[in-house]
Structures are given as C-alpha cells and as structure tokens.
C-alpha cells in the first residue's frame, strides 16, 4: 500500500533562515503520525508545506505515490488534505457558521447560500465536541481561545477527506475538550484517515499515535514506531534528553 503522504529529505528556508532541512516521514492511511519538538523546531513549517501554504525548497513530497508541489491550500484541500493551523486560520469578524463553512459553502439549488443548513450543521458539529455556543451567528472573534480552537477543529474534521493535519490542537483546550479532540483523532484514524498531529503534551501524543517524528532546530532528531519507544523515553527525548532530568530535579528541589 502506498502511503498517503511521503516526504523525503525535505527542506525549507525563509530568506536566510533555514527552518527545515533533511526531514523524512510517512503518513499512512489509518495511522497517526505525531510530530514532536521544541518551540521553533520547524513543526509548523513542515505541516505548512504539507498543507500547501508554503512550498518546499528541497527534497521530495509525494501524495499517494505521486510527486507533488501544491500551488495553494485550495490545491491541498482538493487532494483531500485538511488542516487545523496553530494560528487557527479563522476570520475574526465573521460569524461562527460562516467561518465553519468558509471555502466550502453549502448552497441551495438556486446557487444561494443555504444558511439554515449551514447553521444547523455547525451547531451540531460543535455540540458534538462538547461546545454549546449561545449563537452560531456571533463573530468568531468574540469566542474564547479554546472555543475558537474547537471551531477550527470541527471544521477540519467535518471536511477532512483523506489526511487530517492538526497543529497543536489541544494546546488551548480544557481537559474535557482535549479529550474530545483526541477521541476525534482516534475516530478519524479508525475511519481510515491518515492523521498528522503536533503536540507538546506527551500524555496527549502517546495514547493515539502510531509513529513519532522528533524535530530539533529544523532537523529530524529521530523517528520511532510506537513499539520502539515508551512514554517515559518519549518525554525525555522531547525535552532534549538529559536536560529535563536536571530541571525536574530542580523543580522538585524548589518545591520542597
């Protein structure tokens, strides 16, 4: 079976800043690939290439075995790659349901927006995630950070076709909401989608992921199958090995 997405030795520079170099990984159908790493490690850059926001400078990028270079996010969407960005990609002044359907608006048979349908689906999708909004007509900008996150996730889940990419989806979420998101990730995987998940929380990453890609300062630090690594080792690797132990020790020291 060809992987849904396969990148090999991919590289990306912003002007003179090398944000990503020589990174390889695969995303298989029915599997979760988890990208981990420090702040500024290049995680968002990687998924922006996958999502068609930026284009890679070096290396190869294949979708279903076919060498590709997306010209726009629309292009990626049309190839079945849906993305939730870290900065959420919502339009603050627009209402919740209009944001939900942005770019994929439902229309009636006369070509007009089907507003009733739009509102209902949005309300349903959000309440499935445990978010009950007062009003899906309110501007997204007036939602709390976590609520906004949920809108973006609900949108990607609803429209996601083959690959679902999530950039730190649980960062701003409460315990319950985070749990719901993870459940969605697991559900999507079980429906046969390929999922790319970025997170800083090993407790969120470990239960759902099948493969871990560790980045550091733009380079791959390692790539592990779930069978190869335990949560303890993963956490240690995420924090850059030995450094964390010193820190934990110190934190405990201060507490005492």
């Amino acid at each position: 079976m060809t992987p849904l997405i396969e990148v090999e030795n991919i590289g990306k520079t912003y002007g003179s800043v090398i944000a990503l170099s020589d990174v390889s990984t695969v995303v298989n159908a029915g599997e979760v690939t988890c990208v981990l790493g420090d702040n500024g490690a290049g995680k968002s850059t990687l998924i922006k290439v996958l999502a068609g926001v930026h284009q890679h400078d070096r290396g190869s990028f294949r979708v279903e075995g076919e060498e590709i270079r997306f010209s726009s996010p629309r292009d990626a969407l049309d190839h079945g790659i849906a993305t939730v960005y870290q900065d959420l990609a919502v339009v603050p002044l627009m209402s919740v349901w209009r944001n939900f359907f942005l770019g994929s608006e439902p229309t009636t048979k006369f070509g007009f927006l089907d507003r009733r349908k739009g509102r209902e689906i949005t309300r349903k999708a959000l309440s499935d995630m445990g978010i009950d909004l007062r009003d899906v007509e309110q501007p997204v900008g007036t939602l709390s950070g976590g609520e906004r996150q949920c809108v973006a996730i609900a949108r990607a889940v609803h429209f996601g076709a083959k690959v679902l990419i999530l950039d730190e989806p649980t960062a701003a979420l409460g315990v319950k909401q985070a749990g719901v998101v993870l459940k969605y990730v697991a559900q999507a995987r079980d429906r046969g989608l390929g999922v790319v998940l970025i997170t800083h929380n090993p407790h969120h990453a470990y239960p759902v992921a099948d493969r871990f890609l560790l980045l550091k300062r733009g380079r791959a630090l390692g790539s592990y199958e779930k069978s190869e690594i335990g949560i303890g080792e993963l956490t240690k690797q995420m924090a850059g090995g030995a450094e964390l132990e010193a820190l934990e020790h110190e934190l405990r020291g201060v507490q005492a």
Partner: protein
Amino acid sequence: MTVTATAPPAADERLGKPRALDQLVKRPEIGAMLGALLVFLFFSVVTEQFLSVGGAATWLDDASMLGIMAVAVALLMIGGEFDLSAGVMTASTALVTALLATRLGLNVWLSLLVSLAFALAVGALNGWLVMRTGLPSFIVTLGSFLALQGLNLGVTRLVTGSVQVSGMRETAGYESAGFLFASTFQIGGTSFFVSIIWWVLFTVVASVVLLRTRFGNWIFAVGGAAQNARSVGVPVVRSKILLFMTTAFAAWLVGSINILRYASVQANQGIGEEFKYIIAAVIGGCLLTGGFGSAVGAAIGALIFGMARQGIVYAGWNSDWFQLFLGVMLLAAVLVNNVLRRRAERVRR
C-alpha cells in the same frame, strides 16, 4: 453515541435578559438608518421644500449617483481594499463613450460597450497590480488615479482642443440609450430620474450577493483575514480582482448615466469624488480595515450625504459655510451611528 451530556439549553443562564430595543438594533445598517432619519427629520422641520415631492426628487437624484458608487466601493472595502481611481473612472468611461460616439461616429450602444470593456480592463489591472506587487491598494490605485486623470485631460485636449467633449445629442442611438440611463419617470406629477432605480437595483443585487452567496462570504473573508481565508481554500486573488472590476463597472454605470444625461463631459470630472464614496461607505458601517460592512448601509450613507448637501441649500444657509455644516452633520451622523452600533454589537455577542 453522544459524548456531551448537556444539550444546548433553550435559555442560557449566562445571558442577561436582552431588552426589546437591543433586539431591534441587531442589523449593522440600523445606525446609519437612524442617522438618515435624523437628517431627514431635521431638514423636514427646518425647511419647507425638503419634504415635498420635488424636493425628494432632488435629493434622491443627488444620492443615487453617489449611492451606486458607494455600494460598489463598500463591497471593495469589505474585501479589504480601496479604489482611489473610482472617481476619475466615472469621467474616463464617459469620455471614452463620448469620444467614440461624437468623433468616430460610432453608435452610442457600441460606444457604451467599448467603454465598459475599457472600465473592466482598468479594474482588472488595478486588482492584478495590487495582488501581484503586494503593495497597498491605496498606493496602486492612487497611481491609476493620477494616470487616468492625466489621460482624461491629455486625450480630451488632444482630440477636441478643449477640456470637454460635447455634442452627444446628435449621435446615433442617443435616444434609446438615454431612455435606459437618463430618462425620468413621473410620481405625483414630478419627474424622478431613472438613476434612482439603478441605485436601488444595484444596492439590492450587491446586498444579495454579499449576504446570500458564496462569493459574498468570500468578500468578508478576504477582507477580514486574507491569509487565513487563503489557507482554508478561498480564491483570494480572483475574489479581489472581481471586486475591483465591480467598482469599475459601477464607475462605468455612473459615467454612462452622466454622459447620456448631460450630453457633455468635462475632463476633470469626478476628481475628489472617490473620497465621498469611501465616506458614504464608512458612514454606512464599513470598517476601513475591511471584513465588515454592508451594502445597504453604504446606500444609506449616500442618502445621508445627498440629503445633507441638498438640505443645506433648501435651508438657505450661506453657502460659504457649506463645508462647515456638512462636516458637523456628517460627524453627528457617524456619532449616532457609532453609539448604536456599539450597542448592537454588545447584543450580538
């Protein structure tokens, strides 16, 4: 299998009870509407002729031409861009039509078609330049503003030796084209110009597009956060270019109405008008930063403008102070509008 235990409750305990008035002011145009009502009442009381049918015909006429442009400019502003060349474009299109019809002897309808093509091309060029260079549209369209202004004067003088083109009345097709663009209709024995109907029509279409179509949704999105809109798959470049072309189309419409109505056009017409369009749109609730606004609001903004301009004349105030009255009146209208909108926004949340 649902995870959430709480179904959305009919009444949310986190919402204080909304007052009746607050419910009324949920629409974004309501502020401008009240501003318009104030201006209307004010001049109806202060002057005699303002409220008459003849009076209404006068200020509606004035508002209509401004209104067509204001609505188009409002769409563009919601889409996050400016078009400073919109004012001179009304003259450019009229000049193209007039020169073709009077100098080359083309049929008026054909001339109108050519000038429409010209307008759309300029609009597309504006949009393409803005998107291609990434420069603010304020600067790019300022360039086209200056260029068109120069062209208008230069070409007119080159061809006619004077600064105006006249003599449309003798051209072929003037009557029929004039009927569509510049005729009058009677209400209560007073003639109203057909431009008023164009205005209403244009506003309705723009409003429907904005609120009821995918393209309308995209206009809000590209104005509110173009980068984000792009990442969810909205064709940003295409949408913005279409908006510039819409403005150009409106300028063509106004230019055509002008040339058919006055049968002559002056090369420096329209200069400075572009700001009035923007002002009317802002009075009507458009944000200068894009992503928010309404077509109906812009039309009402133009109405306020028209009523104030003509009302001052009806009131017989010394026209030396004209701008002072206008300034104070606009500021007052915007302030009322603003207070109301804030209130509305509080409710909407």
